[in-house]
């Protein structure tokens, strides 16, 4: 997909004989989107960054809280812990799934892909609602387990970190699969057959041949899932039940309920910086465009 853009590129360079203003029309096409994006997207976000330094009074007071406030540190710690667990589990499940998909016949591959893409586009609220229905105290899982006598007391499956992780992994697995699948599709399965032919066991063939070749996709998927998890609001808010606070919900609490703009904006800024820095570090392996464009 990205390689197909190459011919377009070479021709797209302005011919030397054309005066510069011939390009003005094409820049004009970019203008509406550019203006919309700066005025209605970038400006509000920059304002958040600004507020974190100016309210309640100018200075770095809000950032000082990162080091002095237990509350702030707790939220960051909880967020990081849940994000790391979510990323690890999503990668493990997604890796096995992409591995099977990449080695399947094209026909089977289409069915697998469907099974990944449909959940991806189904409303996150609908999915959180389904999990609440299943996992709550009087939910279907607890009723079922008590019905067949496995447990006496209902298990606490939701409104805690366990529930958040179950819901978040459910949301993130498709995002983990797409970049890994894209990179695994480029691996020639005959390499594995050759390794087996030369006497490697199935596991050795996987570990020495397939795993190293799929590593870039694995890293890309990890980065993507991690940064999506960091600022995730809806699922943690519903499945955490207000008891386990992650960054996004804490920010909402500061701003809508406690009207502490400076603190909320400070954590929002930290979130954005953390995401941009992560992306910058891994920019060579993560190609957002290819990921979203290459869905099917």
């Amino acid at each position, binding site marked *: 997909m*990205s390689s*197909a*853009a190459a011919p*377009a*590129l070479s*021709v*797209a*360079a*302005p011919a030397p004989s054309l005066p510069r203003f011939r390009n003005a029309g*094409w820049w004009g*096409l*970019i203008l*509406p*989107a*550019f203006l*919309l*994006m700066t005025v*209605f*997207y970038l400006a509000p976000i920059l*304002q*958040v960054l600004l507020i974190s330094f100016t309210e309640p009074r100018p200075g770095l007071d809000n950032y000082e809280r990162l080091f002095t406030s237990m509350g702030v540190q707790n939220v960051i710690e909880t967020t990081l812990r849940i994000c790391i667990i979510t990323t690890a589990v999503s990668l493990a499940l997604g890796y096995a*799934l992409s*591995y*099977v998909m990449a*080695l*399947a*016949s094209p026909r089977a591959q289409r069915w697998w892909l469907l099974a*990944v*893409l*449909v*959940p991806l586009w*189904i*409303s*996150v*609220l*609908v*999915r959180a*609602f*389904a999990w609440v*229905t*299943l996992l709550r105290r009087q939910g*279907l899982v607890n009723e079922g387990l008590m019905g067949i006598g496995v447990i006496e007391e209902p298990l606490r499956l939701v409104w805690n970190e366990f529930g958040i992780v179950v819901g978040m992994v459910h949301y993130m697995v*498709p995002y983990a699969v797409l970049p890994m699948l894209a990179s695994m599709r480029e691996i020639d*399965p005959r390499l594995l057959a050759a390794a*087996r032919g030369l006497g490697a066991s199935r596991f050795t063939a996987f570990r020495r041949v397939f795993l190293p070749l799929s590593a870039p996709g694995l890293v890309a998927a990890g980065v993507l899932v991690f940064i999506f998890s*960091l*600022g*995730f*609001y*809806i699922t943690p808010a519903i499945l955490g039940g207000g008891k386990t606070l992650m960054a*996004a919900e804490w*920010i909402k609490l500061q701003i809508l309920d406690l009207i502490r703009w400076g603190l909320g*904006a400070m954590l*929002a800024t930290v*979130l*954005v910086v953390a*995401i*941009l820095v992560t992306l910058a570090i891994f920019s060579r392996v993560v190609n*957002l465009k290819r990921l979203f464009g290459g869905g*099917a």
Partner: protein
Amino acid sequence: MNGGYPAGPFAKGIAWVTVLYLILPITIVIPVSLTDQRYLSLPQQGLSLRYYANLLGSEAWLGAIWQSFWIALASTTLAVAAGTLCAIGCWRLGRRSTELVRALMLLPLIIPSIVYAIGLYRYFGKLDLLDRFLGVTLAHGVTGIPYVIITVSTALAAFDPRLEQAARGMGASLSQTLRWVILPRIMPGIASGAIFAFIHSWDELVMVLFIASRQVFTLPRKIWDGINENLDPTMAAVAVLLIVFTVLLLALDGALRTRRSG
């Protein structure tokens, strides 16, 4: 790729479990929506459609669906118009000179919507756009642009730029070239982008929580309140309808893609 080297039983086992984990919990809302009980549960004595009747007879739910639909339609129009033109411009001007523009356009995909939402809350307050149809449309439209840019860029990558140069060389103006040469060729990409921008707006909750309250009350907002306040089986009926709607839109997108490649 062929199936010459099938995956082992261990990997296959995990893959199946993962797919079941992705799909089954979502399908649970179907039997729950048909329950004959008064609370969220599986049907006990028989199936009942009363929660669908509830939903379709409720002013509040229908109003929310209607508002969401119009907002999604308006913001999709905005995203498609701006996004398509921008993608064409970036494509024609080349990768290097538009690097920054394209990075800017993809920002909404990576910056958490909570950050944007709190920014908007403050920003729209000053512009008197809070709790207004226009405000929500602008917010959803702007954040829908990346989806359009990605699908249209993908379609453009397969488009032969010499066609555009030939048209210009024969004296077609920029708008004529766009209308008669470029746009017809990338229509499937635009349609795909429109579908994703529509779903994006239709499902969007975080911004709406901040910039809308009474006048503008979308479907996700109504579901959110339902989950937090009273979990009754009508919610399951709404969930089923939403799932059906999303699957239909994806099927439409699949059909468009097949036509494009066929």
